[in-house]
């Protein structure tokens, strides 16, 4: 070895041995080791060739990548970066605007997801259709059922078996830009009234049957979960009357609200908290006539290609120290009392995130029947194509 090479090599032989020992002892992450030694690029290239290089040997059978299906603006990107740094597994994030869309993808087969985020009312159907696995709780040591709030976790358990563990709970309310809209919006009835008057051309509804139809039903004085044909007819009339006045039908409303293209929208707690944090003029209110209360879960599809990584990420997310960062970034309330204790006071006292119990009373959890009811599915499709 020439002197020139020794001085210019990315790492000396001694240093390499040293780093290797540190890696073995576990005092540095694989990412650090690969970065320091310049082996990262080489392994990244080799790992692409199946069979050429056994990546499992490095990452403890976790592979090098995985995929998660979730909701828009729902995670702190730093969480996944930290997970990748710790395990070497890169996380691909796919976002969806409705549970129906996730279900449709899973039914058609070949999603490639290793973890996904279904909402409470869908889990029994996923179990019935055999699309998700019962969770192997031994792989989730960081999850503690005893610190969870039963009200938000019970739908993850079907016939005594745990199929899904909660991510967070939340509500579906109304986000209003108070600089643009002066009329009071405190109920779904007022939401639809203002949408055709003061917010003409500036209001958004979700691309999601549960909330769009549900809130229209609530505005008419019916149950959020109604599947009664005569009530659905009324809801359809309302929606089709409002449609020409809407800005868009889209479940990802944050960009439009931030750009003030849209002034008012159906809004989930987490988006409401994020919008209000950055733009205080955007307020988040719960309908006093009703609406949705929900909890979102993590579940592993039966078709997952890399279940080991799915479990690893899930376990990582269940660690209170990691979960607390997610909750601060995401803005939705936690179901886990361990996390609640770690949250700063300005979060737990935020009325958008943790509203008074009285404000929650009129709200309803989504019912499983709405997911598969053909009447609601067809109504939504008609509304969109009207």
């Amino acid at each position, binding site marked *: 070895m020439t002197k020139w090479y020794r001085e210019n090599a990315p790492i000396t032989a001694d240093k390499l041995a040293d780093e290797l020992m540190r890696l073995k002892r576990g005092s540095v992450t694989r990412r650090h080791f690969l970065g320091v030694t310049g082996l990262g690029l080489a392994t990244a290239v080799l790992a692409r060739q199946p069979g050429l290089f056994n990546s499992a040997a490095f990452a403890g059978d976790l592979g090098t990548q995985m995929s998660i299906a979730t909701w828009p603006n729902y995670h702190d990107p730093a969480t996944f970066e930290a997970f990748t740094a710790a395990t070497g597994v890169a996380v691909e994030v796919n976002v969806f605007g*409705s549970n*129906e869309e996730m279900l*449709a993808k899973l*039914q058609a087969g070949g999603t490639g997801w290793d973890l996904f985020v279904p909402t409470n009312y869908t889990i029994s159907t996923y179990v019935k259709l055999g699309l998700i696995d019962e969770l192997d709780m031994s792989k989730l040591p960081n999850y503690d059922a005893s610190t969870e709030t039963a009200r938000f976790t019970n739908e993850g358990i079907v016939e005594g078996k745990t199929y899904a563990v909660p991510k967070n709970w939340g509500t579906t309310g109304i986000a209003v830009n108070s600089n643009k809209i002066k009329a009071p919006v405190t109920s779904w009835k007022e939401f639809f009234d203002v949408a055709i008057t003061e917010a003409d051309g500036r209001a958004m509804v979700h*691309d999601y049957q549960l909330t769009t139809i549900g809130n229209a039903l609530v505005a008419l004085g019916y149950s959020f979960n109604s599947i009664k044909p005569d009530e659905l007819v009324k809801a359809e009339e309302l929606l089709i009357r409002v449609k020409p006045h809407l*800005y868009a039908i889209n479940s990802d409303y944050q960009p*439009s609200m931030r*750009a003030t293209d849209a002034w008012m929208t159906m809004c989930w707690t987490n988006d409401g908290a994020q919008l209000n944090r950055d733009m205080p003029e955007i307020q988040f209110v719960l309908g006093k006539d009703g609406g949705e209360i929900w909890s979102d879960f993590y579940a592993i599809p039966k078709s997952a290609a890399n279940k080991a990584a799915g479990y690893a990420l899930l376990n990582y997310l269940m660690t209170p120290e990691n979960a607390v960062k997610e909750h601060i970034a995401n803005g939705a309330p936690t179901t886990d009392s361990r996390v609640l204790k770690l949250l700063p006071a300005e979060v737990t006292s935020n009325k958008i995130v943790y509203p008074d119990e009285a404000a929650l009373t009129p709200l309803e959890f989504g019912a499983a029947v709405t997911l*598969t009811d053909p009447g609601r599915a067809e109504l939504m499709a008609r509304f969109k*194509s009207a």
Partner: protein
Amino acid sequence: MQAAMNTKRNLVTAALVAPAAAWLCVFLVLPFIAMLIFAFGERAPEGGYQAAFTFAQFANLPTRAAAFWNTLVLAPVGALLCLLVAYPVAYYLAVKANPRYRLILVSLVVVPFWTSLLVRTYAWMYILGSRGIPNLLAMIGIEDVRMLNTPGAVLLGIVYGYLPLMIMPIYVSLEKLDRRLLEASADLGGRPVSTFFGVTLPLSLPGVMTGVALVTILLLGEYLIPQLLGGGKVFFIGNALVDLFLQSRNWPFGSAIAVTLVAVVVVVLMVAMRIAWKVAGTRQVDLV
């Protein structure tokens, strides 16, 4: 001897067309048959398909009348708008442009095709969104203009996306045009305007028809532009179709709509060809 040669010739012919025939059968004919079968089926309780024989899906078609109507109106309107913008450009390129730069100018029309239509349409979302043109308008005192998620935005996106496809066939037909004809017309005292309407335009009609038919037919199945610039409100039949598969999970109804859409395309194509024959007085209308 002759028979042996014929057999050999037939074998070669069969070998030449066999791969294409197999491909067409497996990935065009078979899927179409499957779709037809599905169109007479039922939606399974949880969504998807379940075997049945019913005309219910076709009976339900009127519920998508608005989407069909949108498509049947906006597709030709978009194609005609495209034509209005494209014709002067094609004319300039073929007749007026300096021959030294002609090739470069023509290439520049095609280059946008090399950047993803998705990315370019996304750029329009920015331009039409409130940080774009409405922001500039606000500076001169016109507040709160809304451009994105309107039929106008969708039409703009259509003209933008399909303009090159309209310019090229017209350019090709104008380029073939013999310049001496134009000179002859001028020599005979024809004014530029009458030369244009009497000579240039009729001779370029095959190109015009090709462009209009091509763009109209592609637009009948459009999904992306209305999806991105229409905000889920300006709905083409393509959007209704995607919705039925990816949201309501109603495969049979989706199949019925897809079959109907193909029928619509065939009818539009036939009408377009008929008009083309009449207008251009020629059967030489290439669609490709």
